[in-house]
């Protein structure tokens, strides 16, 4: 099989054109670097574009929201696995990140009294302050911004699969990035790019769980596989966020998002198949707590036929006065979700008059490439850099969220760390002195060219299906040691079959080759997840071990699990100790949380009339006056 190779030279390659990739490319380009963006999806098409579009902006609803408060919210939610430098960077940059989006055309609804963007009326679960800004058209508003930022003046290749980072291996010091390899499917060529900096911003891994996911198809773990193969460390790979409330049916909608804990309102609860409450105060819970409750109920035989449970929001709308406020809140906070709910389940469901059958779905990987707050790949002790010139941003990086990501933080994450990575990558390109070493590129390319034409056994697309089923069953929302044993055997067997897969000899848009590339990335990533999940033999955050107890967050020393490839091509697992939030900082949070839960419980116990009045007051104080007629008119309009 002959496939042409095109050679190019750039300062910085950015893999991915979502929030992180676009911000990285824009920042690097502003810093004077010559940048190439590579995107397997059309430019800007990404989780960022399909998101609900809710963005965390510190102090957007009041100056008492300090950097310390926000950083601590992230660390406490993440069971102290997020690193201090990265969470501090996050807290420092949310406002700049949001301004960047706005300069690219994001126009929030304004709070005219305050002359600044309107903030959602309720703090999302785990945030101790209101600081989330929603947008008309959700993520599409951000999608247009990304598109503009890249299309305007940055070179890009779309329909182009980034294959590998090419490095120079040094015995006496860190390896060096030399560039990267690309399969440009739409033109049917390989592109070899010499560049001293590569930013990995190619998103997550949720497609390993397809169709039980609400994310884009492109999330095949490429970020993590690329990082591993380039010699970088991964952290927290066992921590995968499953959104609790994804649809169980109809088939075309399976896995799509039906809401968040906070959109359960003051009176939303989770019920098992017989209607018994399995979790109350849903609004105050983290995603991980809700998902775990469903998974454990299903495991105990209390789930529905489709392995789900019921999210019951009817309590919110049954109240005559506060009901309309709740509906308005739903339709402004998550309008996209509500449109999907209406299409899938009909009008009664969209008005929350019926319970919703939901099940967790893969959404976001908290783990990722081990980096410092400037997105530089680091090893143990921070200082010992494994590869120079390698950066990761957005979902690709680890260290921001640890064991649980709070709602609305990822869209900020992308722009914050994208910009940091882009600036760093541009600066390195100015000083790097990498020698051109075409043979390093050619050696790698030859391997890919070999794979591109293969008589043989299984079709890669079918192997992908097998892997996806195994991922859900064994490294999904519930894990056991036995399950991990079964999984590892399945991975070994799939690797073997993948090496003999059938791939026709076409250069132009070779779908089997694409499936094969993604299969290999999913296998590398899945193996890292499995190793980390095995190593952590207790439950923590999003990682649920049915055969182990719960890890205490009050006592004991937190650690992250690190996975890397060793020189022999195998995997090595180690731990990175993390500082613990002092008890005296943790306790007030726990007490405040207990108080909020108690107050919700008291609400539920009250006579309905009183409850209605109190909830109405709470909504009205942030939303202003809302009437039944307004809401009905709005929902009618939305339905049309």
């Amino acid at each position: 099989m002959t496939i042409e190779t095109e050679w190019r030279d750039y300062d910085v390659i950015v893999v991915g054109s979502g929030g992180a990739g676009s911000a990285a490319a824009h920042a690097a380009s502003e810093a004077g670097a010559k940048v190439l963006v590579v995107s397997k999806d059309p430019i800007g098409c990404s989780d960022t574009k399909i998101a609900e579009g809710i963005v965390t902006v510190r102090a957007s609803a009041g100056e008492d929201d300090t950097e310390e408060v926000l950083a601590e919210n992230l660390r406490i939610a993440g069971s102290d696995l997020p690193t201090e430098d990265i969470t501090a960077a996050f807290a420092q940059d949310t406002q700049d990140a949001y301004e960047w989006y706005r300069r690219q055309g994001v126009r929030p609804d304004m709070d005219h009294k305050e002359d600044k963007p309107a903030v959602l009326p309720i703090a999302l679960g785990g945030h101790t302050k209101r600081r989330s800004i929603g947008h008309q058209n959700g993520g599409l508003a951000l999608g247009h911004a990304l598109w503009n930022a890249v299309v305007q003046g940055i070179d890009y290749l779309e329909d182009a699969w980034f294959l590998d980072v090419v490095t120079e291996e040094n015995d006496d010091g860190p390896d060096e990035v030399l560039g990267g390899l690309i399969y440009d499917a739409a033109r049917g060529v390989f592109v070899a790019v010499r560049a001293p900096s590569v930013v990995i911003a190619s998103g997550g891994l949720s497609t390993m769980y397809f169709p039980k996911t609400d994310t884009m198809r492109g999330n095949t773990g490429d970020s993590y596989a690329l990082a591993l193969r380039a010699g970088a460390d991964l952290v927290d790979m066992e921590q995968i966020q499953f959104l609790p409330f994804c649809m169980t049916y109809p088939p075309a909608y399976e896995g799509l998002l039906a809401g968040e804990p906070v959109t359960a309102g003051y009176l939303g609860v989770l019920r098992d198949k017989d209607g018994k409450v399995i979790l109350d105060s849903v609004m105050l819970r983290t995603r991980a707590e809700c998902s775990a409750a469903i998974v454990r109920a299903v495991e105990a035989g209390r789930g529905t036929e489709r392995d789900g449970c019921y999210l019951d929001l009817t309590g919110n709308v049954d109240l005559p006065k506060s009901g309309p406020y709740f509906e308005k809140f739903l339709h402004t906070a998550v309008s996209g979700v509500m449109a999907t709910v209406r299409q899938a389940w009909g009008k009664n469901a969209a008005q929350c008059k019926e319970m919703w059958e939901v099940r967790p779905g893969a959404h976001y990987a908290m783990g990722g490439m081990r980096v410092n707050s400037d997105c530089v790949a680091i090893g143990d002790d921070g200082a010992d850099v494994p590869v120079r010139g390698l950066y990761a941003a957005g979902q690709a990086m680890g260290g921001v969220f640890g064991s649980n990501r709070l709602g609305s933080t990822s869209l900020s994450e992308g722009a914050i760390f994208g910009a940091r990575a882009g600036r760093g990558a541009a600066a390195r390109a100015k000083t790097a002195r990498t020698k051109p070493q075409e043979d390093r590129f050619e050696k790698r390319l030859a391997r890919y060219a070999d794979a591109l034409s293969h008589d043989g056994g299984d079709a890669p697309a079918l192997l992908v299906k097998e892997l996806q089923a195994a991922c859900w069953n064994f490294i999904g929302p519930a894990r056991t040691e036995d399950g991990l044993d079964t999984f590892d055997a399945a991975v070994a067997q799939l690797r073997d079959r993948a090496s003999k897969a059938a791939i026709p000899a076409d250069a132009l848009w070779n779908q089997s080759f694409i499936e094969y590339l993604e299969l290999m990335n999913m296998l590398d990533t899945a193996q890292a997840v499995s190793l980390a999940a095995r190593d952590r033999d207790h439950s923590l955050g999003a990682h649920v071990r049915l055969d182990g107890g719960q890890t205490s967050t009050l006592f004991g020393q937190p650690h992250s699990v690190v996975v890397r490839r060793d020189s022999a091509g195998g995997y090595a697992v180690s731990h990175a100790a993390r500082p613990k939030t002092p008890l005296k900082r943790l306790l007030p949070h726990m007490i405040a949380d207990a108080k909020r839960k108690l107050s919700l419980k008291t609400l539920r116990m009250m006579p309905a009339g009183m409850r209605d009045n109190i909830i109405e007051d709470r909504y009205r104080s942030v939303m202003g006056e809302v009437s039944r007629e307004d809401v009905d008119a709005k929902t009618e309009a939305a339905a049309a």
Partner: protein
Amino acid sequence: MKVELITVRNGEERVVEYEYKPREEGERPMALDVLLQAQATELPDLAFRYGCRNRTCGICTIDVNGRPRVGCRARVRDGDRVSAPATLPVVRDMVSRRDGVARQLRGRLPNGLRGNDLEVAAPDDYHALTACIECYACLDKCPMHARNFEDGEERRDASGAYRHGNPFSLLKLQRIRLDPVADPAEKAAALETALALGLDACRDCPGCKCGVGIDLKRKVVKPLVVAAFGDS
């Protein structure tokens, strides 16, 4: 249920009859469901685009019986025919080459709007246009876009950009004109670009249709045409 899939390999078209097996009683599948099932069973090499399965990413557009539809939300019936969007050159099976459209706005968008007051609300129409998912369904029957392919020859510049415009590009330009943050020079430049892309074609055109229901005639074409030519 039988669906005809048009596969394209090395420029050669074939009609493949695929028998869809419903996953639950009475299921009325979307076109994308059919493609996914075909790929997971009999046609593992089938090429098609999709992303979100939720009418948001805009990349799953295919033609159903010759008309563009957003594949993840287009129900198909027995005997329907599914093929690549005919408005762009087909690369393989259901995949058409899209990038010539976006590239035509390179260097023609506002550059970061630095220093402008951001604390202003955008008009409703700005948000109405932001609902665009870039599915390119509107390229269908657009005489301006068709100019790119007159006499069987593709008109692209060195960067691969189509020379002539389309409703999507006009929407992006009109969005600039509605943006309260953009300054007058940028708005004027947006109108110039619309003219350069062939806005004159809209003067005697019955108008375009959007795949997700944006009122392109009233919210995009008319304001541009009025601003450029003073008529409607």
